[in-house]
Every structure is written in structure tokens, then in C-alpha cells.
């Protein structure tokens, strides 16, 4: 968990500097997929048992464990609702996004 590389967005100014293939371009730093979301998960931490199942199941790696507690990264969460479905405590609610 702590071995994360520092991510940075890469922009090349010439094709000559570029690798042959699209590798590690840091594109997810600006391609924030949270805007795709219609409903968002909200965790009631008072009911949370810190089991980590939401963290494990999130297909977008948009849930982090911070000081043992789950924390949703709304920059990337697409609102699929798998965390709410899988939560054994049913303490994650999917809430309509408002403009």
C-alpha cells in the first residue's frame, strides 16, 4: 500500500522522445471518471466493521483504506454500487447526485 510510485502526467513534445508504445503516460491523473457518476456511495462509518470488502470489490480501485477505515475517492468512483451491494453491514447507501 505504501509502495505507490508518485504519479505524474507526461507530455512529450516530440515523437522522437516517445517510447514505441503507450506506456505509463499518467493519463488517469487527468481522466477523472467521477463525472460519469449518477449515484454515489456514502458510507455510514458508525456501522462499518472495517472488513475491507468494499475496498476489495471496487472494480475501479476507488476505495482506499485510510487509518483502517474505507474512504471513497470521488474523483474516480463511477457509482456502480458494487460496494453497497457487497457490504455485509449494509452501511453503504447509494445517493442520487445533485447538480
Amino acid at each position, binding site marked *: 500500500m505504501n509502495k505507490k510510485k508518485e504519479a505524474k502526467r507526461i507530455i512529450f513534445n516530440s515523437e522522437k522522445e516517445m517510447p514505441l508504445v503507450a506506456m505509463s503516460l499518467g*493519463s488517469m491523473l487527468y481522466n477523472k471518471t467521477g463525472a460519469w457518476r449518477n449515484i454515489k456511495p456514502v458510507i455510514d462509518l458508525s456501522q462499518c466493521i472495517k472488513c475491507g470488502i468494499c475496498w476489495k470489490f471496487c472494480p475501479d480501485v476507488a476505495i482506499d483504506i485510510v487509518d483502517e477505515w474505507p474512504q471513497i475517492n470521488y474523483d474516480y468512483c463511477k457509482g456502480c454500487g458494487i460496494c453497497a451491494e457487497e457490504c455485509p453491514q449494509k452501511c453503504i447507501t447509494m445517493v442520487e447526485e445533485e447538480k
Partner: protein
Amino acid sequence: MKKVIMGNHALSYGAMLSRAQVIAAYPITPQTQVVELLSEMCADGTLNAKFIKVESEHSAMAACLGASLAGARTFTATSAQGLALMHEMLHWASGGRMPVVMGNINRAMAPGWSIWTDQNDSLSERDTGWIQFYCSSNQEVLDTVIQAFKVSEKLMIPSMVILDAFSLSHTYEVVEIPEQEKVDAFLPPFQPPYRLTPEDPHAFGGLTSPDHYMEFRYKLQKDIEKVPALVEETGREYEKMFGRYLGQVDDYLCEDAELVFVTSGTAGSTARVVVDELRNKGIKAGNLRIRLFRPFPFEKVRSILSRIPKVAVLDRNVSYGHHGIFYQEVKSAMYGQPSPAAIFGFIAGLGGRDITKDDYKEIANYALKKDKPEEEIVWIGVKK
């Protein structure tokens, strides 16, 4: 050592001698024996490779790409509907610069179901960024596989080695099987400039914005343009070691010809025999068999055809609503050349119908009699 083997097994021996490390494939007639023999070689230890069984050709290519990206020399083979199912993955291979070598047995696309040869399967993949070689003998198939690995790995672009269903895939010919030590000296182990490894983690093929996509494609085009010269160089190096030369094209008696057939695959071998027969009758014929189709060998084709008054292109394929595909390509290559030839387009042999010596004679008669083509496509052998 000389062996009498079928074209499909020439592909297998080519992959074995190249020391392919990962093979993932799904069987389809007329390709099946290629991977059947390779799986036996993997099982009995003749070949030290991982054979991955998969549930479809799409998965076969996907498995090959993973292996190639991890740094393994990778081989597969397919045909027709199987190649079509791989289509998406073919773009991944070239765009991702993974030098997989694949045998494709030219088989007509269904419907109606056919297992017999024509070229519409591989030519439908013309624009995927793969190098394409069309072969006309089993020896050529084996030698091309070994050379294809060398060319592909140097430029990090995948190659397709293509042979006709049955008229080559299941036809037995005498093939010189080179010694392993010599092939090892010609083709050293694959050493990619980058690879998928936990020691240096990277995300490959991720989201690529308009800032960079075009440059990656520019680089692919610039590198594939290096193939013709590299094929010549590799062919000469192979000739020095093994005594057999294969270049971009196989030109036969074109020098002084008044009529040149442009052919490919096994139909190109028949054309050679017809050229001899026509020459015995006093007609100066020649045969230009195109081996390297992608990238198109512009310079070579121009240098040979610029001097020729009549060119007859034979296609065992059709681009519906246009012409035969080799005809299109030859015309486009010759556009604007100083001494343009009259170029005629003929279509024959779809769905495995034989292309006979008499068909070539009909083609020669048409091209010699007319100043220029009077039809967009001249169909040979259609029951009208």
C-alpha cells in the same frame, strides 16, 4: 536434413526452430495440424515452450500478446473465421508493438461454408499494421517463419506468414530442415526494449489522449516502412547461411517481358510454368510473385513493372464494389510512374476453385489482344 512434410508442418518446424517460447492457439480447418504438431513437440520436450489452450481465437491472440509483452517469443496460427475473430486483437498486437508471428492459412470466408482457399481472410486484415508474407512452397513457409521472427523483433511489428489452404497447407513437399545450431546463430533470443515485469512496473496501452495518439501511429508507419529493406537484408543473411534467398518479390523472366503476370501464393507457382510454356511459343512472358504484401514493396514493384508494356494482375480475392485487391495496390503503386504499363485486373479461383494453366492462357490472350482493360474486373472461370 530433408523431410517430406505438409505446408502446415512447415509452419510448425519453423516455429520450433525459432524456439518459440509461448504458443496459444485454437484449432480450425485447415490450420489444425500446425498446432497439433506443436502441442506434441511441447508435450514430448522437443520444444521447450508453454502451450496455452484457449476457448477462441480472440483469446489465443490475447494470450500471445500477454506473453509477447512479458518478453517471450510467441507464435500462433489460424485461418479465415478464426482470423476474423482475432481482428480486434490484431490491432492490439501492432499498436502495442508486440512482434508475434502467426501462420494464417488462406481459407474463403463463410457463408457459404468453405474450407478451401482464397485470400479475403488475410486481406481483410490489410490495414491492421501487420507485416504480411504470402508463400508458394513448403520450404518458403519454413524459411519465412524464421526470417519473420527476425524482422518482426527488430522493428517490434507482428508478422503473418500466409499459405493457401490445401494446395499448400495439406500438400507434401520435400523440405530442407535447417540445423538448430545454425538457426540459433541466425536468430538470437528475443530481447525486447521494454517488457511487462514486476521489477519495473508499467501500464501498457492505457488511455492515450490526442496529445500522443497520432505520434504513436506515425512511429508505427515510419517503422513498417523500414520492412522492405530489412527483408532484403535478412534474406541475404539467410542466403549466406542456408543457401536459399527470399526477398520482397519473386520475379521470374521479367527483364525482357512483354507481358508480366502479377501473382501471389501457390497461383504464383502455376504462373511460372505458364511463363515457360508461353516463352516456348515465342511469347515473352514473365511472372512477378509478390511475397511481401504489407508493407507494399513499392520500389521493387515499380523498378520491375515500369519497363513492362502489359501487366496482368491475378487476384484470388475481391474488394466488393471495387477491384481485386492486388490489382488496386499495383495500380496505386504505378500511378505517376514515368513509363506506365497497361494494367489488367483478373479475378479467379475464389473459394478454392483451381487456377489452371488454361486460366493463365486465357488471361494472357486477353491482355495481349487489348490495348487497355475494357472491363473493371475480368472474371476468369465464372459459369455464365
